[in-house]
């Protein structure tokens, strides 16, 4: 039915199968849409946030998807600015994942605020001292850059590409993509950093507060660094999951291994910086405010914020994946590689969780207790929504756009002509078991 839209030379599942798949994921998405409507109509009382937990699951989701979407800017930076040419085989997917992540972040911000119709005040009445102002400006600009980066891929759809104007537009946009990659890297550096600055500047919250350089707390740099390290890991993780889902190899190992190696070394650097930051914070910053390290990790209900969380973040989800990714053996072992990128992604998620929720949970007034929070179903549904939306976007893009340049080479749907001719004893006799002429309608 939709064969005319499917790229040439690749095989896709039957249309009915695709529709069922989109329908199931779409149902999950609609559950999230229903929850959004409830939030819009009834207000933020639909959440389990309270006056102690003004930031909760949604802000965590925002910070996390933006960090994981960092694969787009960093892969673009490596491909176009540093000149790592092999990465051209995965840049499309990195951009797509980044686009999904950033559009999700904007969506979440759209219903996370108490007065969504006034959200534009952040631009109109901008406070230059606020980290959120910087985030809003850079995030919006960078989303524009991501749209520009995604557009040439969308224009490469078989039917759209037939229109000369779109064909040339796509070609010319590819030519100048380095400009947008550089712009994206610049904008990302600042908004990833500013998101780190959100807890870092809160001098009333000793768990989040950090000293720094000029107006930027150390968390500014740590967030940018972790996004540059964890973002590409997320790109690799999603690529591997996609390959499992479609039962095909889509990107060659050397491309994945190169990105994994760079991520690994970025992760090593990040871990060194993070450990130094944690040590300085525990030894000097927090004590100057009257807190010991264990004040932040002990005596909380159910040890939800026990010291285990710091060990998990730095050790299990930081140092361990970094060590795997920087070794040749680790990268070449499929299971080890998958485990490493998964752990690195979890490490970023955990870091954003503590820098949003634990900051607020830790009691600062001596006569207050740890704040507790469990998200409501509306918060969970609206947080799952972007995941469903992402799956739909990936499914549509994979089906109708040439996202993976190496897919045809890695998954030939017919035997190469020269090879077939060599094997034929009689040119007139059709080869037994040979695949029929590739036809998009059969896809």
């Amino acid at each position, binding site marked *: 039915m939709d064969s005319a839209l499917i790229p040439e030379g690749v095989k896709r599942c039957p249309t009915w199968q695709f529709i069922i798949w989109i329908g199931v994921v779409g149902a999950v998405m609609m559950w999230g849409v229903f929850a959004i409507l409830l939030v819009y109509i009834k*207000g933020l009382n639909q959440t389990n946030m309270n006056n102690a937990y003004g930031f909760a699951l949604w802000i965590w989701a925002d910070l996390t998807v933006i960090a994981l979407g960092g694969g787009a800017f960093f892969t673009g930076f490596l491909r176009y600015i540093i000149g790592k040419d092999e990465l051209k085989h995965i840049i499309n997917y990195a951009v797509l994942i980044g686009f999904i992540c950033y559009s999700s972040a904007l969506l979440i911000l759209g219903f996370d*605020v108490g007065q969504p119709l*006034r959200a534009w005040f*952040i631009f109109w009445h901008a406070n230059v001292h606020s980290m959120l102002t910087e985030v809003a400006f850079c995030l919006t600009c960078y989303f524009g850059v991501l749209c520009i980066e995604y557009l040439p891929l969308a224009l490469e759809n078989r039917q759209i590409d037939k229109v000369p104007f779109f064909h040339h537009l796509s070609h010319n946009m590819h030519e100048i993509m380095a400009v947008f990659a550089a712009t994206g890297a610049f904008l990302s550096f600042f908004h990833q950093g500013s998101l780190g600055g959100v807890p870092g*500047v809160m*001098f009333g919250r000793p768990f989040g507060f950090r000293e720094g350089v000029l107006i930027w707390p150390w968390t500014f740099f740590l967030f940018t660094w972790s996004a540059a390290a964890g973002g590409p890991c997320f790109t690799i993780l999603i690529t591997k999951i996609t390959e499992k889902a479609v039962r095909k190899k889509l990107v060659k190992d050397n491309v994945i291994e190169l990105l994994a190696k760079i991520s690994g070394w970025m992760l090593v650097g990040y871990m060194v910086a993070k450990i130094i930051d944690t040590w300085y914070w525990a030894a000097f910053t927090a004590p*100057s*405010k009257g807190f*010991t390290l264990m*004040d932040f990790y002990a005596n909380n209900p159910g040890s939800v914020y026990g010291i285990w969380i710091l060990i998990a973040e730095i050790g299990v989800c930081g140092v361990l994946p970094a060590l795997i990714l920087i070794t040749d053996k680790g990268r070449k072992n499929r299971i080890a590689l998958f485990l490493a990128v998964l752990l690195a992604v979890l490490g970023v998620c955990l870091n954003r969780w503590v820098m949003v929720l634990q900051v607020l949970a830790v009691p600062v007034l001596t006569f207050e207790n740890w704040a507790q929070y469990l998200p409501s179903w509306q918060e969970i549904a609206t947080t799952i929504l972007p995941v469903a939306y992402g799956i739909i976007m990936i499914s549509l893009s994979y089906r109708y756009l040439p996202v993976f340049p190496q897919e045809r080479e890695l998954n030939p749907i017919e035997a190469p002509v020269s090879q077939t001719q060599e094997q034929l004893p009689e040119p007139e006799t059709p080869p037994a078991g040979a695949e029929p002429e590739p036809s998009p309608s059969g896809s």
Partner: protein
Amino acid sequence: MEKENSKKFGMVIDLDKCTGCGSCMVACMAENNIPFREDETDKLLSVSWMHVYRLTNVKPFPDTEECYLPRPCQHCEGHHGHSPCVSVCPATATDYDMDTGIVSQIYTRCFGCRYCMAACPYHVRQFNWWDPLWPDGMEKSLNPNVSVRMRGVVEKCSFCIHRYQLAKDQAYMEGRREIEEDEYQTACTQACPAGAITFGDLNNPKHAVYQMVKPDKKNGGKPKNPKAFRLLERLGTNAKVYYLSSREWVRRAGDNYLKTEGQAKHA
């Protein structure tokens, strides 16, 4: 920058006098049109500009002692007006007024991002999780000088700034430039039956608040009175609400200390 004749309104709360009766909370709610709901059991969802905490020295009987601590907005000055909440607000919906030292909140500009709530260590900022609804007829008793707030915005104690505006208007009508100390008093100050709350200009040596705490201007406003303290002094919030207590454990409960810095923290 602070002008030569600028004021710095602040509060001194004598914890030796406070009985914990809650009159300040009631007066504040009535004066400032603070909304309430039928079920107010979850205090983390309530709006309460003035909140009275109960502190204990956690010692067994007969050494048990208690203390009630009223907590309005601390109207932090931070460094040069960069109070924890003001500097983070992305839409400039909250402001530090250098002429009065009051941290204001512009309800019609706030879009409810709640960053200020996260930044405030005193939990003085509260969110309107619901639309304000009053029982039938009660809306007629609302204070016309204070705007009611809508769902989805943050609000907090304003040091009854509308009373300051009224006092200034009155002085202007009478041909005066300055107002007297007793012309501008907050609702909680006037409602306290024990006289535990004192309000005035911390820049004016004639005002009671100044004489009670003797703020050291050169030292970030720290009190020279050894019985006076501010909550979370070590964070550098530079608050304008001072507390007085003759009890050491109460004063120490106002801040966090390492074990090596003296006795253990009080719960």
